[in-house]
């Protein structure tokens, strides 16, 4: 069996060019990501912003110039200056310090809610799409029911009923995002259920569970990752919105949504900085996640670009 049985001619059609070196899995993805970042500076910028946010979330409390909770009535309502870069609020707290410290809380809320829904929604969706039948019907019905509410309104209702805590904000944000993840995972699993390579895997003796985990899951992961990045922005907005109307995080804890709410009353008397800087921080974070999501989508599937 060592020799080639028949000297068949080499195929007439040209093969796609071989990669310079045999890149595998992760390394190839990383290399590609670098290529995309280089060819698309906006995505590069988004990666840089993301790094800055992570850094601020990690180091925020250590590097603040002032105690974010310490009030100083003598220095209340000061416009931005060299001493207070972002000015001070009505009780004289340093806004720059508060904005910086708030990064960690907002980031944690977003990451944990997205991680939660990624696992739950992704799992439910893949099972629904792959197994079909009753699994599909029940899971889809749950999603439909959640989708029957305007999402932010449902989040309000959940936090109001469960109680006013950060954990419940995370939970509510995860619940309202559940249908999105579930539907994407379901659709992706469903189109692959009868795909040639899945049928082939059945022929080679793979059990259904194994096909789900080893064949289908890796193919769905990239799309779910993109979704994760895109909904991070929404999760932050959702949490900040809830805080803005007085749900979830309580003052004086520094959190971007609350800080904007605190500054709202001063806008019409001209003290713009109290609301502006936390609002800007919020906006930049969401902007960063959206750009990142678009960039990731380009890395994974250039055709899907919109």
């Amino acid at each position, binding site marked *: *069996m*060592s*020799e*080639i*049985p*028949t*000297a*068949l*001619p080499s*195929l*007439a*059609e*040209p*093969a*796609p060019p*071989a*990669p310079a070196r*045999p890149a*595998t899995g992760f390394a190839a993805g990383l290399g590609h990501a670098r290529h995309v970042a280089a060819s698309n500076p906006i995505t590069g910028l988004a990666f840089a912003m993301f790094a800055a946010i992570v850094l601020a979330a990690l180091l925020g409390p250590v590097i603040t110039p002032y105690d974010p909770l310490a009030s100083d009535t003598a220095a209340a309502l000061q416009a931005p200056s060299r001493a207070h870069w972002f000015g001070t609020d009505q009780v004289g707290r340093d806004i720059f310090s508060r904005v910086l410290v708030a990064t960690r809380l907002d980031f944690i809320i977003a990451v944990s809610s997205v991680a939660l829904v990624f696992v739950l929604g992704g799992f439910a969706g893949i099972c629904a799409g792959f197994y079909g039948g009753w699994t599909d019907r029940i899971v889809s019905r749950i999603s439909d029911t959640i989708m029957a509410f305007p999402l932010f309104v449902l989040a309000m209702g959940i936090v109001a009923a469960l109680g006013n805590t950060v954990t419940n904000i995370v939970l509510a944000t995860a619940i309202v995002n559940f249908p999105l993840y579930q539907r994407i995972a379901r659709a992706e699993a469903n189109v692959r259920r009868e*795909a*040639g*390579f899945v*049928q*082939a*895997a*059945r*022929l*080679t*003796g*793979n*059990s*259904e569970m194994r096909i789900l985990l080893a*064949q289908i899951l*890796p*193919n769905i992961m990239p799309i779910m990752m993109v979704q994760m990045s895109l909904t991070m922005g929404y999760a932050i907005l959702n949490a900040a919105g809830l805080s803005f109307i007085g749900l979830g995080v309580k003052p004086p804890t520094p959190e971007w949504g609350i800080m904007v709410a605190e500054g709202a009353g001063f806008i019409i008397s001209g003290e713009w900085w109290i609301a502006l800087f936390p609002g800007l921080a919020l906006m930049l974070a969401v902007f960063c996640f959206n750009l990142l999501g678009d960039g990731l989508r380009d890395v994974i599937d250039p055709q899907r670009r919109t």
Partner: protein
Amino acid sequence: MGALLDVKGLTVEFATRRGTVQAVKRVDLEVARGETVGIVGESGSGKSVTSYAVMRILDRAGRIADGSVAFSGLDLRAADERGMSDLRGREISMIFQNPRMALNPIRKVGRQIEDVLRRHAIAGSMDARARTIAMLEQVRIANPEERYHAYPFELSGGMCQRIVIALALACRPQLLIADEPTTGLDVTTQKAVMDLVTELTRARGMATILITHDLGLAATYCDRVVVMRQGEVVETAPAAQVFAAPQDPYTRRLMRATPRPGATLRGLLPEGTPAPPAMRAPVAGAGAPLLRVEGLVKEYPRQGTSRTWRQILGGGAPADAAPFRAVDGLSFEIRRGESLGLVGESGCGKSTTSMMVMRLTDPTAGRIVLGEDDIGAIPARRFAASPHRRRIQMVFQDPTDSLNPRFTALRAIADPLMRMGGLKGRDAIRARCEALAELVGLPLDLLDRFPHQLSGGQKARVGIARAIALEPELVILDEPTAALDVSVQAVVLNLLEDLKSKLGMSYLFVSHDLHVVRLLCDRVIVMRQGRIVEAGSAEAVLEAPQAAYTRELIAAIPHPPAGGKAVRASESVADARDPSAG
């Protein structure tokens, strides 16, 4: 008077991520009035791009880099967009591959034809409708008044193509460009559509450019043939001459690779290939029945799956509650070492049959016996864990779809070895995969590549290696070459034949193409509407078909005259040449 269309030195470039690519290189093409010219080539030959460039409907990334295009003495390259748009549809028309997609899905087909008539002021608001209906009549659409109001999704593929033809010919253009007009249609539909196009264009004295990958189609319907390869014209000659005495080596190879009456499997390969004679090594226990299928039935409920099935049945299926029988009492046998061909048009139930024999779908009734074991009794869901699983394997239709995009070729071939072969250890698996790769002629350095880094033929080889990894007794070949170019198809078919005699397997070869089936199979079953229409030895069925349907099927297959030294060459040429052409 000069040529109707005169293309000189046409070069088309596409801007891609890897830089500029020339899809068409210095192509010359002349079409006289009333002439039918075929542009033939395999995928990537630039045959479609040439026509898009003539029509100036290249997409954004493409541009004409060089050359001239003259139509009736008018310089099309210099024409402005408004002038071109006046010309399109009125002077030059196009019909496309995939007719269902070529029509606006949410506009009535009658309105779509009307749009064209009114655009070119052939008809006003008063008579547009009457003219549209007259046009529908000309393309042989029954009940044109009713069909005027139909949407594309309510019509069959063949009917949609008629609408597209009506749309293209509505303004009596001088030149029709038909871009793979029948790809994806069944052979009988293909013949009806092509005959219609020929008749209508001839009646109008129109010139036609027929773009196709199918030499047989070009031979049957064209006066002159232009053969293209990788963006260049390699040969231009009258159709008879190209097929009787091809000049260019590539044309010759293409000719040889096209399955046709009288061709042999080895004869498909390029001349001078050191292929051993196809000796049939005697298989142990040859002749004993390996697979017995008795009274196989598969029913689908009409509700729920209604739309798909209604399309297959052709529009007006009764809405009764009786389930639809995709396979209706099928019985056949495959002996050890034998190849059985299962032939039929789309919707005849051949794929459903193969899925049931493969034990991926459960039959409604009937028995499937492999050797001594009633494998039909084991539910498809549990068959993956059955010891019989490794005895039947399959080569899939679409090599791309059948490989997991995130697995390397090695991982794909190793899958059955690890799951069922009981093979342990990296090195042992690798060694076995390399042996299999050699067996199917896959260069070893390609084993670490992902599917998107492999060509179609290479992917097909990976799929075959995976199927034979555990030396199964029966392999089902589900249109294994349908997605491949003919030259690659020739190689893959030969490979399959060699593997069979070497490993002593039996094949169930499912295909729509009788000529391809004949090359590989000893016996053939012709299916229609879930039933067997005719069965017999491959030669007998092709040479002397008994059933009317089989005769119709065979008559519908366009075939090039067998070139070179093959038998019956002169006779075939006479058959295939269009009597009124030239």
